[in-house]
């Protein structure tokens, strides 16, 4: 049963649910952060949900996703375990990284989330190497590497793209251009607002509205298939905005580096609200369905937080655990 978006109703609803789940998780983290039970920096994903949701809808568990400091949404969209994530934020042994990583280093081999670096762009060559291994071993899987706009300024990204092209690797680079690096606007750091332009001479690049989940889905689907069928890497820039501060829970307006007008205009373009309008028009959701989804999320989140709070802290004696593998 395909509709005008060339996607089944289930698939459309799934995209919506993923976004909602991420949003509600982030909001709950924000609400509880001041209670000081999560001793970890948090980089919230609020406003960018369409990207993780749209991209990951094209991935299987065997495909791998390389994330960055802003990884909560990526992890959940990739099928991550909510309990393990919330426990990691609570510094617990039951966390997906056993309490050794914290919010910036969610890792979960069960869902193709193999490492997460908080060095900006640090994961980009590593993801490229993962694609090299996949290609060498003939695994047929695809690697997706997420990065921010500022990450594209690091030389290793350039080096990685060139190598991926040279070896025709099954990798898709996803750039979430939210216009800011911490509190610094893109145009203080770069000549052009479209960061993918820099790579036009190297590989196929696309610039897409990152707040339109269907556009994200469709563009990444093509790039991922392209990679999967051995036609090589590509680079997609999704233009978006984060509605909260770089880390912590307030907004960039409150933090003093974004204007109210700018923020408002992007709030208008909220990817979830926008998609809700589409789904309503298609008669795929109504307030009851939305409430149902919210209820499910709320319960799941309450469980996850309870689980996290009740979990044990790592054993102090295990300081050296994991130093060597």
């Amino acid at each position, binding site marked *: 049963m395909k509709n005008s978006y060339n996607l089944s109703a289930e698939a459309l609803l799934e995209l919506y649910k993923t976004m909602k789940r991420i949003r509600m998780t982030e909001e709950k983290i924000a609400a509880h*952060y*001041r209670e*000081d039970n999560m*001793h*970890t*920096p948090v980089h919230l994903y609020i406003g960018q949900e369409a990207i993780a949701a749209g991209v990951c809808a094209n991935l299987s568990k065997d495909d791998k996703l390389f994330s960055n400091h802003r990884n909560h949404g990526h992890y959940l969209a990739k099928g991550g375990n909510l309990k393990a994530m919330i426990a990691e934020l609570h*510094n*617990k042994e039951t966390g997906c*990284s056993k*309490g*050794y*990583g*914290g*919010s*910036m*280093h969610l890792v979960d081999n069960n869902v193709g989330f193999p490492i997460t*670096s*908080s*060095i*900006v*762009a*640090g994961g980009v060559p590593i993801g490229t190497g993962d694609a090299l291994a996949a290609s060498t071993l003939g695994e047929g899987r695809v690697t997706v590497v997420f990065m921010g706009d*500022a*990450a594209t*300024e*690091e*030389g290793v990204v350039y080096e990685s793209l060139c190598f991926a092209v040279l070896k025709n690797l099954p990798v898709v680079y996803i750039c979430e251009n939210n216009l800011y*690096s*911490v*509190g*610094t606007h893109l145009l*203080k*750091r*770069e000549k052009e607002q479209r960061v993918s332009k820099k790579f036009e001479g190297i590989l196929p690049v696309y610039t897409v509205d990152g707040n339109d989940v269907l556009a994200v889905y469709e563009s990444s689907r093509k790039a991922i298939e392209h990679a999967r069928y051995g036609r090589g890497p590509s680079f997609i820039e999704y233009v978006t905005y984060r509605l909260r501060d770089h*880390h*912590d829970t307030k907004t960039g307006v409150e*933090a*003093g*580096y974004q204007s109210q007008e700018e923020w408002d205009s992007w709030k208008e373009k909220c990817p979830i609200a926008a998609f809700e309008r589409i789904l309503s028009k298609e008669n795929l959701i109504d307030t009851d369905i939305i409430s149902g989804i919210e209820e499910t999320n709320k319960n799941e989140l309450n469980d996850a937080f309870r689980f996290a709070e009740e979990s044990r*802290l*790592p054993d*102090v004696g*295990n*300081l*050296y655990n994991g*130093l060597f593998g």
Partner: protein
Amino acid sequence: MPWTKITQSDYFEIDDNTEAPTSRRLKYTEAVREALDSALEIDKRVFVMGQGINDPGGMFGATTGLYKKYGEERVFETPLAEAGLTGIAVGAAAAGLRPFYCHNRPDFLMLAMDQIVNHATKLNYMSGGQCNVPLVVWATTGMGWGSAAQHSQALHGLFMHVPGLKIIMPTTPYDVKGLILSAIEDNNPVMIFEHRKLFNQTGHVPEQAYKIPIGKGVVRKTGTDITVVAISEMVAEALKASKKLEEEGISLEIIDLRTIKPFDEDIIINSIKKTGRLLIADTGWATGGVSAEIAARIGEKTFGLLKAPIVRLASEDVPTPASYVLERAFYKNAEDLEKAAKALW
């Protein structure tokens, strides 16, 4: 939230300079800012660069508003390209400017190693003295609140090994202003590692520009039993521990090294002549770090004077864990120092 706030070390307060007539109480970061302000004012060749230096946070206040006073040509934001930008700073320095390059964390300096190790520190030597590089690289060491393996490293020990560098690690507002002004005036690459736990310290700082010589340590507390050579935030831990130890009859002499490369050998040796015992406390890893060099060099020069082996209190050979219980096991503090001192006594 300590990741956005600065952890307060409430026990640490040294008034180096209460007598200076223009002296006021300033916070550590205010003293840094005042040093930069002075340098920008005095010397038109000076400029400041870094990620986020002009955002509202302004490096914890160390750079706040400077761009408004001196313009964005002299106080500018950089792209995220630490390797290239370090080279650019080196080139600008070699061409007659005096860059002050700010980094939020030493971890990010790993991207700039080629320019620091292979270029900044070598160009003058390999050109027969034709190309000195008056570059200052400033990095603030973070810790705690789950900063974890890639956002908390105290990497000054790595740089100890690099010829051609000077490295300062000031602990007081008075020192940081004076040492930064010396660093900027120096014709060679100078690295500054500052510990965030010191940022909220206050102390007396004279209003005018003044300099503190690179390479000179200072005795923060005189004592008779054990010489403690403390680096950066460990000075605070040592002072805290010394109070308890005093009650138990152990008297520490605490040396704040201030400069780790070149470090003040004489001040250590003179103290050992009195105490016969040396404990070195560093915020970085022990293995192959600053404490190793101090132990090796001082050990050689004080052989026979020492009544006990030189002891090092520094991080174990493991990355920083995230969870606070593990963090507590990882970081050495006043209690650890107390224990080490007792064992040495």
